[in-house]
């Protein structure tokens, strides 16, 4: 047990004796680790923020949407969901808790006291509040009564509120959307941006109103999000939905679906897999610099062994075994590399935070603990691996030759 403690302090002393050289030697490891941590911290921060923004959409939420490929767009034969599909979801499929159809209603510009904006206008029902996880900070969301009575009311996003320079509390103000007047009943909570697209530049109006105003739904498109009563039944509900919607849409057997059922978190998962790949690739590239750093360590350690040949001879004369010498030099290399790694981690964290704060609207950098532990462990391992050659060289020295070395 003592052996390691001894070798450890001997290694520290010898690194300390050549402080500048030790630092320069480990610079490669330092920069490599720093780059890894900086890259990972920025990507992870980004990925975390995306996940958080979507976390309101639980994994029990599914979304039914029409599916169109390039041919559909080219020929103009665009598939759309119909209100029959919505009704099928509502009434024909067991295991569905809440159904929230969202009708995109391109009603035109929105005006308030001479200012105009063009937000996304979405027809929704009260269920949207739970299913999409939207909340109001002031006022209320749409209600069943709004829907039933086709009230001309609107719940607006913060961007709309800001850009139209409406009062802090816009409830009770009137907006002209397209050709219709709407009374504002609520202000949505701020959600921020995803990929630079604001999530707050939107207006919700009652579904029934959107439906009647868009008239023909040729130019409008609809998606239906719905929640599953029992989370464990998600797959069964998905299958039942697929069967029922195929029937509703009168798709003949063998014909491909012209709709798709997406899990709300599938986007998040997809995104996470992209960032994970990006992280892995970047970390791999940067990892090469760690190898280069390791070679640097090996090089200097070999020089150091030559320089200290006589010292090694003395230690052997005093009774040091091959193993004693091997452990001492291996520890020295590992320690050198680990110190570089630790400094690199700290600088990498700072760099990550710096980068994240320099880019506007970029989420704060974040590094999972395990990445830091892995980085430290990996750098120490680089030291051990590249320390093997110099340490074996030192251990194998012949004591007589080594003592005679000038």
């Amino acid at each position, binding site marked *: 047990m*003592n*052996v390691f403690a*001894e070798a450890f302090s001997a290694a520290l*002393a*010898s690194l300390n*004796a050549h402080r500048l050289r030790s630092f320069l030697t480990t610079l490669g490891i330092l920069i490599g680790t720093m780059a890894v941590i900086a890259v990972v911290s920025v990507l992870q921060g980004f990925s975390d923020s995306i996940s958080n923004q979507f976390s309101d959409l639980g994994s029990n939420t599914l979304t039914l949407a029409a599916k169109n490929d390039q041919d559909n767009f080219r020929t103009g034969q665009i598939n759309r969901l119909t209100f029959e599909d919505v009704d099928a979801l509502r009434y024909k499929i067991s295991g569905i808790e809440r159904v929230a159809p969202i009708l995109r209603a391109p009603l035109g510009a929105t005006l308030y006291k001479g200012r105009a904006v063009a937000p996304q206008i979405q027809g929704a029902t009260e269920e949207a509040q739970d299913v999409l996880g939207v909340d109001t900070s002031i006022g209320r969301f749409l209600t069943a009564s709004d829907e039933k009575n086709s009230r001309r009311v609107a719940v607006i996003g913060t961007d709309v509120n800001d850009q139209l320079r409406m009062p802090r509390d816009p409830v009770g103000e009137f907006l002209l959307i397209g050709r219709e007047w709407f009374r504002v009943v609520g202000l949505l909570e701020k959600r921020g941006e995803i990929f630079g697209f604001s999530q707050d530049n939107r207006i919700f109006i009652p579904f029934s109103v959107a439906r009647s105003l868009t008239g023909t739904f040729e130019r409008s498109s609809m998606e239906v999000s719905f929640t599953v009563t029992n989370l464990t039944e998600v797959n069964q509900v998905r299958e039942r939905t697929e069967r029922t919607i195929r029937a509703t849409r009168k798709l003949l057997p063998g014909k491909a679906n012209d709709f798709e059922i997406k899990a709300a978190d599938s986007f998040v998962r997809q995104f996470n897999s992209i960032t994970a790949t990006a992280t892995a690739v970047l970390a791999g590239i940067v990892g090469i610099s760690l190898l280069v750093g390791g070679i640097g360590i090996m090089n200097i350690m070999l020089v150091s062994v030559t320089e200290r040949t*006589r*010292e090694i*001879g*003395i*230690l*052997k*004369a*005093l*009774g*040091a*075994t*091959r*193993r*004693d010498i091997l452990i001492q030099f291996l520890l020295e290399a590992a320690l050198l590399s680990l110190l570089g790694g630790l400094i690199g981690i700290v600088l990498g964290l700072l760099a990550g935070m710096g980068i994240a704060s320099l880019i506007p609207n970029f989420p704060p950098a974040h590094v999972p603990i395990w990445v830091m532990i892995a980085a430290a462990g990996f750098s120490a391992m680089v030291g051990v691996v590249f320390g093997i050659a110099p340490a074996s060289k030192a251990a194998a020295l012949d*004591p*007589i030759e080594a*003592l005679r070395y000038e």
Partner: protein
Amino acid sequence: MIELKGIVKRYVLGDETVLALAGIDLFVARNEYVALIGPSGSGKSTLMNLIGCLDSPSEGQYILNGRDTSALSEQELAVVRNREIGFVFQSFHLLPRQSALQNVMQPLVYRRMSPSERRDRAAQALRNVGLSDRLDHRPNQLSGGQRQRVAVARALVGEPSILLADEPTGNLDSRTSSEIMGLFDALHALGQTVVLVTHEPDIAAHCQRTIRVFDGLIVEDHPNPARAA
């Protein structure tokens, strides 16, 4: 104690085989004070390396304290060196970055001794050579004589059965040399077995017995009639 039987040592240098020791028989008893003398190239250094277990013979047997070391592995030889041999070198061979105390503690590191015990023993060994006020000095802060005394303390700290000194006064002036030889004399008087390698007759004169090596053979082995003071 030290018993060499038919020791032969060959070196291979390129295509040539050099016979460094051509058949040495030697017995050194406990508490003897022996000088190995001979010109350079005579094989006395090789003999010393063999006695010090830094090297193994090509042929023959080396029995140290009743144990045949000829067949020991490198690892085992390291242990023998650590326990049985105390080396003193011509150019001191101290570890330059370590204090006198740390230098003397070093052999005990390989005995897996606790740091506090090592410190106590090393401090005692330095007191014994008269350096109790120089414990924290580095080698470059010490005079040649002081360095050699640190080296002697280091050689003795592990209580070896043999103190093996290779030209211990070779780098010292005459006054310091006689100081160091006084130290060896005193150690011998306390019961230490001492083997010196030297080419200086007046250093050899300190010993009880002189062994002359020439061309890899012992050509002369006689007790010294009178010891200088």
